[in-house]
């Protein structure tokens, strides 16, 4: 399963605009949060 470019752009934009805590809270509310977590973990892992 992959995130679309549009979804990825949206996620990165929101992380850029929100504070760290707000961004994490937002991710937790997303229906595809597992996939988002997987992607974000790959940035640094």
């Amino acid at each position: 399963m992959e995130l679309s470019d549009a979804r990825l752009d949206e996620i990165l934009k929101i992380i850029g605009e929100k504070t760290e805590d707000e961004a994490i809270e937002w991710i937790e509310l997303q229906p595809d949060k597992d996939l988002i977590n997987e992607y974000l973990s790959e940035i640094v892992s």
Partner: protein
Amino acid sequence: MYFLPMIVDEEACIVMSIGSEARKKMQQVHGLKSLSNAEMRGLTVVKQGDQPPKSPLTEFMEQTPKILFSKSDIERTAVVGSDSLRVTIQNGDIAFSVNGYYSKVEDASSNKAKVGVRAMKIIQSEVAKMRDGTLLTNTPTTSDGIGDRRARIYERAGFGSPDAFGNMRSVVKKGKMTPVSKEQYDYMIENKHFTGNLAKSETPWF
């Protein structure tokens, strides 16, 4: 002196020049005050000295600040939950490691996502302080088999597409990262679109 490009068929055109007398005659015939912007009967009049259209590479270069090769070393560390994050920017090259590893570890817990968010915030805050034109580079680790996917994330975050060696480039513009491809980078270097002297011995490895 004016040039008249004449379309003679769909594939080709010819250009002829006309002198001042001929130009006056054409103005009279067509009742025009000036031929400089006239379009008539398939003839487009172009004033000599008009600039040819710029190439996309030239346009990109003109819209991009002169490249600045950073000589500074930045190191930021953070503890996020049970993970230790290290972010380094050495001579513009960005690298991340978590718990000492650069490649993916099996534990893809949600805490790793928090580490990812923290890393992005650190880069965001550091980039916001950088001078316009600062060159940033990154070479996503590929040893864990997900280098392409990682590169895609970096591309969406502001890096240009990876070159044949996996190197990615970005230039800081108004506190944000803007993607630069290898072709665009090479073009700017060839045209000396950088700040300071770039001696051969200092040519960046990327």
